[in-house]
């Protein structure tokens, strides 16, 4: 038998980033998002991106007090995905037919101001996180520990590295690698196309 959770429980679980609740939300809402995306000839990676982005938006909102839903969590989640998806389609269309649209179409035709959801932010975030997670495991760990304000000496001890100077050099190298990865990512150029227009 499948367990059912109330919206409050799910939001609380998401706030605390509990795997069980994240998994539940993912399992319950993804089929609807998939249906939505496939209607407009989107693919499975679009579905994953939208669900991930909607989850981040929901998580960030849930941390901001007071967070009150005026509809069901499912409706809210789907509406975030729908907005993101329409904006993404709009941007794709714009990039494909830039010259014709510049004259005729108003920009941001699908943006919902009251929800403050911007696909550009989503593209940027996806691009950065994707590359952050594509770094070698030791780089990821060093950077995470560094930003948690763990001292270099402690990082060296925790990771069994030579000394703090090695950690410091490695941190610079990792950060440099990450920057280069982002700049060489094809999506990066697309993102900066958005920014330019």
């Amino acid at each position, binding site marked *: 038998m499948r367990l059912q959770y109330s919206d409050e429980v799910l939001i609380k679980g998401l706030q605390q*980033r509990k*795997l069980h609740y*994240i*998994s539940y939300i*993912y*399992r319950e809402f993804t089929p609807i998002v998939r249906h939505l995306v496939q209607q407009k000839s989107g693919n499975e990676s679009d579905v*994953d991106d939208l*669900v*991930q982005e909607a*989850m*981040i938006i929901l*998580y*960030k909102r849930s*941390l901001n007090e007071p967070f009150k839903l005026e509809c069901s969590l499912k409706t809210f989640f789907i509406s975030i995905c729908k907005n993101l998806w329409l904006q993404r389609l709009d941007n794709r269309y714009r990039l494909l037919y830039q010259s014709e649209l510049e004259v005729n179409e108003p920009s941001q035709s699908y943006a919902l101001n009251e929800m403050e959801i911007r696909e550009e932010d989503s593209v*940027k*975030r996806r691009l*950065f*996180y994707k590359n*952050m*997670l594509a770094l070698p495991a030791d780089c990821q760990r060093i*950077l*995470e520990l*560094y*930003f*948690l304000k763990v001292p270099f000496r402690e990082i060296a001890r925790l990771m069994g590295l030579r000394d703090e100077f090695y950690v410091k050099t490695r*941190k*610079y190298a990792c*950060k*440099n690698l*990450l*920057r280069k990865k*982002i*700049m060489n990512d094809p999506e990066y150029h697309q993102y900066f196309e958005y920014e330019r227009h």
Partner: protein
Amino acid sequence: MILNITNTLNMKDIEITSEWIDRYNENDLNEDEKVLFRKRMENNPLLRTEVHIDACLNELYQDDGTLDLIKKIKNINKKTDRDEGLLWYMLIAASFLYLIAFGTMMSLVRIDPGNRAADVNVRSVENRLVPKAKIFPIDIFEGLNQVKNITPDARRENSRRQQLALN
């Protein structure tokens, strides 16, 4: 004054490494280095972009909650893909097993001569007992077909016989 010029000349020779980008965003450069770095940034759009990216990265890394959330979502995603893959493998394996089992059963039934004889017997008994079904119970074309199929010689012979019978 001379010292200042020498310093400036020295600073101009300094090569800016990628390390400087980190240090600039972390406010770790001294005043002279900062001035030099800003000057280089003005003339170098690529360096500017790199500094911008680095600042964005710092901001994202500060938000460790979101990073943790993304990692968890990615894991769920991978697990779902794995489960779906496993399900497909199991379905394919089950289909193969079914086909093999069905094929084996069929070949056993066909090969066994006893079974074959019994099968033939049953069929022959059935043939004897059950007459062939007709589409129409009465064949209204039966007579016509006979007439149609009769040759002129046969017709003449028939009429001769009928005459003889009448006589």
